[in-house]
């Protein structure tokens, strides 16, 4: 119980800091903290495989991606020109909305018992985290993934392929094709000079 509350408070604080940080790099660090807390919470929920995946993929890949883009956008020129805020005081409706929704949720939760059906249990039985083939372990997860849920697994592979293609098309190298090596060198020199010239403005 104490674990839960500690983790919950830390998660909330890091989420708030992420959303309100002045510089994007602070947001990334806050988000990293959030993911760490979330991974620990997964461990408390016997979802050990998920905890590991969370750290590897989310913290280790996605956040790094964010870091790279921040680095790209912060090079030299300030990309965040301060134009007028088109939606001033949008915080008020948003907060109101959030509070109302949460209020309804609280009221609903107070008037319902959250069912815990035991009949839908499947997979391995519960056991302490770290022992093989318990609920939430790699073996249990893998069995489920490669037998019952094989089709979604294959489809996610497809999704990832689509993502790769999309990224390459969108943000790929814009360099033009040149026929000879001599002209290719000339084109590279021209591009470097252009970037340096614009960078000086």
């Amino acid at each position, binding site marked *: 119980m104490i674990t839960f509350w500690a983790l919950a408070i830390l998660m909330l604080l890091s989420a708030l800091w992420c959303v309100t940080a002045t510089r994007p790099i602070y947001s990334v660090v806050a988000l990293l903290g959030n993911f760490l807390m979330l991974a620990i919470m997964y461990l408390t929920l016997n979802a050990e495989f998920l905890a590991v995946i969370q750290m590897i993929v989310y913290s280790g890949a996605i956040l790094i991606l964010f870091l790279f883009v921040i680095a790209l956008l912060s090079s030299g020129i300030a990309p965040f020109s301060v134009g007028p805020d*088109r939606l001033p005081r949008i915080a008020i409706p*948003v907060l109101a909305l959030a509070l*109302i929704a949460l209020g309804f949720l609280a009221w609903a939760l107070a008037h319902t018992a959250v069912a815990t059906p035991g009949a839908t249990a499947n997979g391995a039985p519960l056991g302490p985290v770290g022992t093989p083939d318990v609920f939430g372990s790699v073996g249990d997860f893998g069995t489920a993934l490669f037998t019952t849920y094989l089709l979604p697994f294959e489809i996610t592979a497809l999704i990832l392929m689509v993502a790769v293609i999309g990224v390459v098309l969108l943000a790929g190298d814009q360099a033009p094709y040149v026929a000879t090596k001599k002209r290719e060198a000339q084109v590279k020199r021209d591009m470097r000079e252009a970037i340096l010239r614009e960078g000086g403005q």
Partner: protein
Amino acid sequence: MHHVMGVDGYYPTLIALWLLPLAGALVLWAFGPQLRRSAGPLGSAVILGSFVGTLMLWSSATQHLSSGGVDLVGAHQTLFSWIPGFDFGLFIDPLSLLWALIITGVGFLIHVYSIGYMDGDHAFARFFAYMNFFVFAMLTLVLSDNFVGLLVGWGLVGLASYFLIGFWFFKPTAVAAARKAFVINVVGDVGIMFAIFAIFSSVHSLSFADAFAYAGSYSTPWLFVICLALFIGAAAKSAQIPLHTWLPDAMEGPTPVSALIHAATMVTAGVYLVARCAPLWSQNSDAQVLVGTIGGLTALVGAILGCAQWDIKRILAYSTMSQIGYMIMGVGVGAYEGGVAHFFTHAFFKAQLFLGSGIIIHALHDEQDVRRMGGLLRRLPFAAVAIGTGVLAISGIPGFSGFFSKDQVIYGTLAHGYAWLYVLGILTAGITAYYMCRLFFVTFLGSYRGAVDPSDLGMRHPELAGTSHHETEPHEAHSANAEWFMIVPVAILIPFTVLIGWIMFGGENSPWARFFAEQFPHPALTATAISEGVTGLITFVVVLAGIGIAYLRYATASAQSNAVARLRDESVHMPAILSNAFYFDAAFDLLFVRSSQALGRFFGRYLDPHVIDGAVRETAISAEWLGTLVRSFQTGLVRAYAFILVFGAACFVVYYAIVAGGLH
């Protein structure tokens, strides 16, 4: 059940005589400019062909056959099926045979006359095309075997009248008169249409045979409604009160038109209708009272107004209205043979009167006001003979044709029990004699007043007198033969006017009565206090009184020498109620014309631009507003779109919270 009134068969002559005038009209319309002067003889020959055809059908039309307990009279020719169960056909029996003979016979004579009268007119061929079209339309009316064909003919006849009244369309008065005639006729058309609806709803058939076969089974109020509706149509077409105002104005058309359409044939269509629907009228005495009374009133009013007119054609127009009042009175009260007889004789003498007055008008270079005539006995002796015999016939002098037919009508009213109409009829006969003799005396006796200054004669608008066309339009020179074309038809008509009445002599055994023996219902009549012979005598005395008064006023030696002063006095002191024709026109103007115009103005100035146009514009404006409203959502801001998404999601959360959480 489908009843047939005539003997069914194939009668090619009937179809031919019906369609021949239409063919003539089409040819004349199409090739008028090329035909030029030969349009007249062509048009006349076409009508002569129809006349010959009608004569050839005499025996078929008067045949009768008893088959299966039903008495069939006349000939019936089915033409085609309109919708399954409704057949159109042609039907000729003694009644329609009589009408067809007059239409084609007198029509032929008038066509020939027109060759002379319309000589030199630029639209010579168009005139004959319209006249042929009229004959076709009138034949359709009288030869149909069902109400719808009758209505088609009815409408086409109205159209032909519109064409012909407004023939000289560059005259605004003619155009106005044509429009007035057409509008009043449409009122009648609506009446007949309503009657058709009513008949159809009871009988589910449109043919005469079926409608009359069930005549006894209509409920009395419904039958009265049908008869009333039919009579509204008859009154409009036959210029009965109160739908008579178009007839005097219709004299704007050329004189042959007045003779054919507004004297002999078209205006008698109402009489034909009532006579044809005799089975319906005989069942309902209320309808008979209505028709008889209106006929009698019209006769009287027409006669009174005829005493106050100065235009020779308008005198004859009011006299037509009055005489048709006699006919309507006759067929209304149930004296069908009398009413139809009067139609027959009237066709001859009225046509003669009109054509004779046309000769005068032509000779005096389009002068129509009798105040500027006078002394024509020596100048135009033939016209004097023509009009003189016509006057004698219309007055009902014994021996002449008008006497026999008018007498039949007057006696018929008494025989069928309408004593007040009897008195009315006799009184009107006297007035008729008065104003017709007035016409004759003022026109022919004394000295010629054409050179007198119009205001000395009491004419307030001399420029409106003599309203024929020749003054405004140049025309080709008259050919020398034009006069003969006008004289010969009138000469042919004179013996008919004088002698034709004798076929009605002899009561039940006269050729006339035997001709119509099977046609009309003959209810048993109570004996009358005054016999037919005594009636004739009383009528003759009253007529003589009328002639005497006219003689004293216009024909004595002193009257002839003081003619100018007397005419001026009479014109100036004419009571306003008479010169405004009992204010019928003013009443109609106030009731209908002004209100319609006001309604039109209201629609044109307020309803249309603001309401209807406004609705259309409002639609456009609201569409635009809606578009602007929706466009305000497209800000292009990602954050705004995201917020809206979240709002929707929040709604979902709330919904599920309530449904899943609250209601359990």
